[in-house]
């Protein structure tokens, strides 16, 4: 599953990150790597953004980028 499938207030752990090296590197610099626990806050349809809580911070990424992050709900 991806973040897009996660419902609001659900938690999941990142199991795989697809995409190129730059994307991996970008996510790592934002504290997002394999094994990171994410918590979905909200994803207002109009914005095309998804807000997650990651390592105690609320971070928003664009939906298109989230498609490359695979996770398992916990």
């Amino acid at each position, binding site marked *: 599953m991806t973040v897009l499938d996660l419902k609001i207030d659900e938690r999941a752990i990142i199991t795989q990150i697809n995409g190129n*090296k*730059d*994307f*991996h*590197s*970008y996510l*790592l*610099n*934002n*504290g997002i*790597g*394999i*094994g*990171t626990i994410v*918590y979905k*806050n*909200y994803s*207002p*349809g*109009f*914005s*095309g*953004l998804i*807000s997650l*809580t990651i*390592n*105690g*911070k*609320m*971070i*928003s*990424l*664009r939906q298109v*980028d989230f498609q490359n992050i695979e996770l398992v709900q916990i």
Partner: protein
Amino acid sequence: MQEILLIGKPNSGKTSLFNQLTGLNQKVGNYAGVTVDIKSGKLKDQQIIDLPGMRSLRSVTPEEKITKDFLLGKLGEAQIVFTASGTNLNDDLILFSELADLQIPMVLVINFKDELEKNHISINMHSLRDITGCPVLLVNSKDGSGIDELKHYIEKKGFKIPNSFCKSLYENITDQGIENNYVQSLSDGTQPVNISLHENDYLKRQKIVSAMVRSAVTKGEENEYLQSSKKWDKLLLHPVWGIFIFLTVMYFVFQSVFAFSSIPMDWIDGGMSNLSAWASSTIPDGWLQRLISDAVIPGIGGVVIFIPQIAILFFLLGVLEHTGYLSRISFISDSFLRKFGLSGKSIIPLMSSWACAIPAIMSTRIIDDPRERMAVIFASPLMTCSARLPVYAILIAVIYPNDSGRFFGSQGLMLLALYLLGVISTLAVAWYFTRRSKIPSNKFWSLELPVYRMPNWRNIWINVYQKTKSFVVEAGKVIFVISILLWLLASFSPKGQDFIQAEYTKYTASTEDSSQMNQEAFELEYSYLGYLGKGIEPVIKPLGYDWKIGIALITSFAAREVFVGTISTVYSIGSDEDATIIERLRNEVNLETGEPRYNYATAISLLLFYVFALQCMSTLAIVRKETGHWKYAIWQFIAFFIMAYLFALAAYQLLS
């Protein structure tokens, strides 16, 4: 002088700490070639340097690269005050562990003591000191608690090299011994990223830091401190209410820049006029008197008059930023702006441009993507700023005379059309720029939504002071010089004063027309500027303009609103009411055709010229300052001039 570098992740309260340590004893300098502020200030005999926030030593955004390069260039010399947000230790200490591997003496400062207390988080400082091996202090940069202890450590040089965390990951055992390539692995940003090494490194650090935080920090329910922010976000990011609140807030900001600045701007304007009159009456008659009263004082006035707008905009932006709402505004507007190659971070500069492009261009520093930032700097002067309003008002009144008393009329529709044209052209230029520019762009976009906090007023005021000072000092120099240059061109004639006087006497004797030119207008006609106006007449004639309009185009290069004043002078009009100006413009006859000079075609052509032309030297000066060189300012001027010319030409040729 010993250098102390303030380093931390974005939103860790680093700049607040810097302000607490240095007060107003600060200096802002741009890093060579890149427009990022590196602030430095003094604390007794120590130099405190506030570097842009960074997420990791491996980050590649321009600001983070600056911090990394600066830091690696100071290895062995500098010491670090590392700022971590008390509520985000798990994340912030990963960067701390990277710095620890550089073996630089450090003090670890845990900030936002108040938020720790509010969220029932307690930290065992002894345990953290033992694990890290360096001094650890708990401070609150908002109210200054714990700052004295930090100052004590800085003054007594109580920094210590922390325990290395993961440096061994980069050690190779060679015949010569152990070789460590950690620093080399960081400094080569042009090489492809070794993602597995990066990932291993990150995971290892994350594991160590998590264990460290678990052993030293006791906290209540996880993410408890985020709950209140999340509740607010449910309202402020709501698909309907969120947008309504956003539009209301933006209207307030936009309106405030106009409304609250008008009175102080009038004071400055009036004060400068009085000063000019005083200089004129006090200094003995001659060129020096005219230079001071007609060029130096108005030149200074042309700079300081923008202070209220800049101060108000940056004050309001500061409040929005400190409370955390600025990020929400970016969140809400991202989807719309993405269609034009921009992101939500561009919304504030773009909307600020409706008031004035100068503070708007200065506020583009909140955009972290270099290409997007340059696109906004390039396109935002096309938004209809307040200086265009006097020009629009007069020209619209000339072509639509009978509109008074109607709520919906041609005048209002024309003004609306001009505003819309400004918005459309801004977005179109930004779209084109982001597609054609070779400036590096961040491929990915993320936005941290910070927790809602009360604004730190002290920091906001320091920022307002710094931004205003920076404008006055940097852009002011250019504006001042160009003002004097325009004055010289308008005040001196290749023919000499005696010749002009004799010609004027002849002219007044030969005409009894009550609308004859006054001496001021006559002198302007014979000035270098007058000759310039006549010189450019063949170029502007296809647009429907004569040499008198040419003079106004040249003088309004200083600022668009100067058009009105120049037109008043050129047509021998005193500085009375607008109605008189409008009447005179309506009555002005084109001697070649016998038709009104300001007919529909000419007025529309002029309006379109002012929609596009970059007739504002202050904007050019601030573009130069923000981009670091003249290249973009010159391109912008030329490109907008060509657009203005072509649109004005098309309008005149089609309508006449």
